[in-house]
């Protein structure tokens, strides 16, 4: 095991990048659940759509890169709104379980339609700045990795300000934690869920654009990312933005470091083993979930 110390920093840096991505996906889950308690299984598809639509605008329509990215984000936000109007709103009187199933259906619809329109081969985008890694000590780091980290940080601050410092954010949260109270105060719950879908689609699209230069995006890559993001959100504490971020990084780093001890074939299983452990020993997650009564555990 003399090379253990040699691997360690490199695996850590690779884990941090992939952790940031899980965190971004997890944030999208949390945003919707904070407003409506719905678990939106189409979250991974928003990520995929962000990458694929930017690819299309960049290479098909030949828009400049920043412009293409911006329009793609707006399109995905629009898709998020449409998903609420067409899928969630008509079912607003149904139970949460049925709504979750509906989002699962929407996710299959989005990925298959995407495969039909844009093709099924994986796609990639040019990195934002430079393709050549620079080194910190022995560890090579791609500029794109830093972009991912920076954007995760900015999005976290944005979502924190939105939910804790604005009336809108508080109204969103109120409509989830106390629907009756929110109704009495004149908060339109449907509007809040509508907006939450927009925000979470936007976060997803940004994540998609950030990661496509690093990892290729194809019509089906949203599923696994969505699942990992969901695990990250549960791991950190379901319903907390900071929980999703922490969970994402923990998951990414543990997954990457696990390679020191176990063969790489089991890499994907690590996430699920962690989820099982968390669910049996600390179901409210690392930071604790506002939806779970902590006295019971």
């Amino acid at each position, binding site marked *: 095991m003399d*090379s253990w110390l*040699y*691997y360690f920093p*490199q*695996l850590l840096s*690779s*884990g941090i990048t*992939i952790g940031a991505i899980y965190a971004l996906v997890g944030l999208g889950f949390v945003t919707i659940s904070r407003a409506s308690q719905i678990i939106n299984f189409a979250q991974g598809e928003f990520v995929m759509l962000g990458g694929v639509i930017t690819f299309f605008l960049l290479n098909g329509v030949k828009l400049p890169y920043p412009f293409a990215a911006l329009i793609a984000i707006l399109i995905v936000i629009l898709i998020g709104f449409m998903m609420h109007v067409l899928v969630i709103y008509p079912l607003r009187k149904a139970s949460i379980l049925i709504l979750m199933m509906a989002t699962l259906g929407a996710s299959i619809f989005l990925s*298959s339609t995407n*495969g039909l329109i844009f*093709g*099924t*081969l*994986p*796609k*990639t985008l*040019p990195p934002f700045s430079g*393709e050549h*890694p620079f*080194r910190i000590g022995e560890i*090579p780091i*791609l500029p794109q990795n830093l972009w991912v980290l920076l954007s995760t940080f900015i999005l976290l601050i944005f979502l924190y300000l939105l939910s804790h410092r604005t009336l809108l954010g508080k109204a969103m949260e109120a409509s989830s934690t106390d629907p009756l109270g929110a109704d009495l105060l004149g908060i339109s719950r449907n509007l809040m869920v509508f907006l939450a879908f927009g925000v979470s689609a936007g976060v997803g699209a940004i994540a998609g654009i950030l990661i496509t230069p*690093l*990892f*290729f995006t*194809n019509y*089906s*890559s949203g599923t*696994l990312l969505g699942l990992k993001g969901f695990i990250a959100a549960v791991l950190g504490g379901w319903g907390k933005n900071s929980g999703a971020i922490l969970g994402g990084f923990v998951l990414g780093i543990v997954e*990457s470091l696990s*390679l*020191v001890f176990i*063969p*790489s*074939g089991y*890499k*994907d299983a690590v996430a699920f083993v962690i989820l099982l452990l968390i669910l049996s020993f600390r179901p409210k997650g690392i930071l604790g979930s506002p939806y779970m009564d902590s006295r019971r555990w």
Partner: protein
Amino acid sequence: MVFLTSILTLILMAWASPAYVAEKTYKIGVNLEFTGPWAEVTKTMRNAMVLEVERINKMGGLDGNPLELIFEDNGFDLGRAAANMTKFTKDKEVIAVVGPFEDNLQATTRAIAEREKITNIIICPSNPMVRALKQKWAFNIAQSDIIVSQKLVDLSLTRKYKKVLVFPAAIPLAKSLAEYYKRFGEEKGIEVIISNETHKPTDIDMTPQLIKLKPLLEKEKVDAFYACTAGPPGPIVCKNLRTLGVKIPILGTHAFGFGFIIALGGEAMEGVEFGAAKPVVFDQLDENDPVKSINIDFDKLMKERFGVGIDQLAGYGHDTIGLIYDALKRSQGKFTRAAFRDALENTKGLKSCHGIYNYSPNDHDGLSKKDMVFVRIEGGKFKRIKIPEFE
């Protein structure tokens, strides 16, 4: 009543037995992944087959009887692939089934083909476990794992690699490619290390595995890195390896010969070398190459009709129809599945896009090492490299 029904069934069965197959059309079942991750790739093959069948029918088909393709989508799903295969075997007019594409799906359809006695033409190097079964009814039209590995050993010898590290994907095809490469390489004095680390076709980041391999590369002074994989993991491995600062040459498999691989990998793909099928670089073949003109003509046809030129898969589509047509011509008069199979097995020297096909009772892999060329990725394009002693 039961007695009557069974008698009737028996009569019906006798009447519908292969010996009485209608002589109007020759149906060919196509069981491919038209949806799912390979949808775009199989579409090319479908286009090529449609084009060839139309051309043959325009020339009068076979003694005035047209060929007909029946497409069934297996959706990248084992159950559906098996169901499609069974459906084709029940249709007495279907003379042969083409596909599927994916390794584990075809293992199943081959078994069904064996049981139901129908020819199954598959487009993927066979995996050795299946080859050991000596299946009578399965024919492979792609470059087999054996010749791909032999070709790569030739390439490694020319480049004077003494030690090569293989990083295989966790799929049967990649495993057998790795093992054949090791076997043939060690016969020629190349030291081949197959890494314990593998990767899955769905992995999006190979950096952790490669970080673990990097000290090994340095300690053992490995000359070349063999990315033994197919599909998107190819460019991912190359990208991650270059990001980690590993500068040794990368060898690839024949599955690197698709345009989208270069588009994905970008700069990291520069200098990657592999043994490829002829349609990948058909315009750079020697003037006296027996199949150059076939490729050029077919490329023109494809461009006229579908707007895109040929690639490996279009070549397989062309060759499949060519082989079936040729075998049917030789089984004249007898239109049974068995007669067709025997005729196909006796195919000798059929020139088509990928090369010259020769089948025999002991060899159901039609192509030989001569039907591959060495290719290097240069300037974002496939460039043929000529190595006179191994052409």
